[in-house]
């Protein structure tokens, strides 16, 4: 029982946390970009499911993991296009459309999976762990942290890219302005709608990638509802991270740590803490964070509001 406190255990835990956080990191950073442009996409769950399924299907057909990942991203963006059309062009309520997207994602993936794949019972190859030279030789942590597959490592790259995009590119500057004061962007001669479309597509593409990781980098099978709420948790991560990509990375890691802890606890039945306590912790912490930071203080001012040109 005391092995819980050893360094080795801690290292394994951290490694698992990073792996479990990976889909959250992709989805939440995507959602940061979308929400920074003023678009709240509660359809992330359905979008991630599409990514998970299409990634699986493409990899199943071609045997290629990169193609699977690309299919996951494309599927996410296809759903993003539907979401963007209804929320930006039709100017419909973002929550309502998001709810529809979730139903569509859940239904479509389960329908197609049951129709074509469930009887095959076969899985796909999943991405293999890659040792990072030197780092993986570090004592204790090296082995556990730096023997992951490339998709897990790429979360760092995605975070860095998101920071560059949001804070170092002209596109990101305008995008942040779109979520805060769209009229100013309009007067400066840029199309608010185009930027929102762009933000939603990037966001849903990343959500699709996060979903595809589940089938191509984590388990080798698609299961109905495989995302098990990660799309919703990503929404919470964004709030908790106060709309910052780096924040989203670390908050996702924290949530990943809770997942890992909870799995470990389930494997250690003699411990007297119900694993559900750790399951519930991220959600409780999100609520506490909302209370502490105050609802609107860090949120883009026009989050959830369609832009009216007049």
């Amino acid at each position, binding site marked *: 029982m005391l092995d819980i406190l050893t360094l080795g255990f801690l290292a394994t835990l951290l490694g698992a946390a990073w792996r479990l956080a990976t889909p959250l990191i992709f989805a939440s950073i995507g959602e940061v970009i979308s929400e920074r442009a003023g678009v709240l996409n509660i359809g992330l769950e359905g979008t991630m499911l599409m990514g998970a399924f299409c990634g699986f299907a493409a990899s199943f057909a071609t045997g290629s993991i990169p193609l699977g990942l690309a299919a996951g991203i494309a599927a996410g963006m296809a759903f993003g296009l539907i979401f963007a059309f209804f929320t930006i062009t039709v*100017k419909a309520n973002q929550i309502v459309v998001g*709810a529809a*997207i979730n139903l569509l994602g859940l239904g479509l993936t389960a329908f*197609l999976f049951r129709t*074509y794949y469930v009887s095959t019972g076969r899985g796909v190859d999943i991405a293999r762990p890659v040792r990072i030279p030197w780092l993986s030789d570090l004592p204790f942590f090296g082995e556990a942290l730096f023997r992951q597959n490339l998709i897990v490592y790429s979360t760092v790259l995605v975070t860095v890219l998101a920071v560059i995009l949001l804070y170092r590119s002209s596109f990101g500057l305008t995008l942040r302005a779109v979520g805060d004061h769209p009229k100013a962007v309009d007067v400066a001669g840029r199309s608010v709608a185009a930027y929102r479309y762009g933000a939603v597509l990037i966001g849903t593409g990343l959500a699709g990638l996060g979903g595809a990781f589940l089938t191509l980098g984590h388990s080798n099978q698609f299961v109905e509802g495989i995302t098990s709420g990660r799309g919703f948790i990503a929404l919470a991560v964004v709030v908790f991270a106060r709309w910052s990509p780096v924040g989203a990375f670390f908050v996702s890691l924290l949530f990943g740590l809770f997942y890992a802890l909870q799995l470990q606890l389930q494997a250690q039945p003699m411990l007297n803490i119900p694993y559900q306590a750790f399951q519930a912790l991220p959600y409780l912490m999100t*609520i506490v964070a909302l209370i502490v930071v105050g609802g609107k203080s860090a949120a883009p001012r026009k989050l959830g509001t369609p832009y009216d040109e007049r």
Partner: protein
Amino acid sequence: MTMTQIERDGRGAAAVPILRLVGRAVARAAVAVALPAAAVAIALACGAVLLALNGFDGADVVNVMILGVFQDFRSVTEILLKAVPLILIGAGLCVAFRCNMWNIGAEGQLYAGAVSATLIGISFEGLSPWLYVPAVLVAGALGGAIWGGIAGFLKVRFQASEIVTTIMLNYIALIGTSWLVTGPMRDARAAYPQSARLFREAWVPDLIAGTRLHIGILVAVALALVLYVFLYRSSAGYAVRVVGINPHAARYAGMNAGRNMMAAMCISGGMAGLAGAFEVAGVTHRLYQNISPGYGFEGIAVALLAGNNPLGAILSGGLFAVLRSGSELMQITSQVPQVLVSIIQGIVILSVVAFAAIRIWPRRRS
């Protein structure tokens, strides 16, 4: 040309205002029914295309899903049984949405209600059913109302987005239920995680002997009517709507916006909690980890299709129950995966949204 325009142009009709009023009521009702009906038709058509594309018989959508489910008496009672939680939750959400409170947490509120109802239902042996059944139902409603009220309180007191908090509370309720049925409330004799069985006296009586249909369907329809009357005929409901339309005007009129928002969250939560109570006390008689197949989320679509009108929720709740039963039947008869229903629901919502936009657009341009 809309009906109102025709009426306004026909100035001569002013002599018979009652006729005109009736005419407009009919026109409004026609629009209120025709558009959702068109949305459902579009969704079913999309479903048929999807089936045809994937090697099934597209015509099944109509044959099985709509007509097939009415084949015998028992299947009709099963539809009504499924309609109970959908109508309850949908009608309750109408109140929340009318108050501009985006309660996404009906699923969690349903679980909170189911847990409370179970707690009461397994604790008092030998109570008279006349007392016990109402007690269980009230406990469920209270549990849901408190769960919804938490999100309302966080919104009013801390401006915490109810969208996020209700989603979080969903998970907390689901995880909490899972803990209860695997831990403190677990029936030690059962292999599967579940609570002890509710005492017989706490069971909701059947409406029709020999079927699973219980009196909950009557309660659901009655409560939907009550909520309609509340929203459109009572002073308190008027205040709820005013707060939802324009909080500034509500303050100007002397209303307490926060109190109304709390009320809307508690009412919608209470309805969802009651739905949970009916599931345990009327159908399963035990608490399980996944007692709801997503009724709470489906309720959002029910309210939306009803145009946030509790009366409409009776119809749309019934319709969604038909779709749900139909898709189950399709799975049995034609091996079409049952989840087709989710796809159809999603398309229904998007169609409703698109129609609303088409109605607004010409006005915007002018």
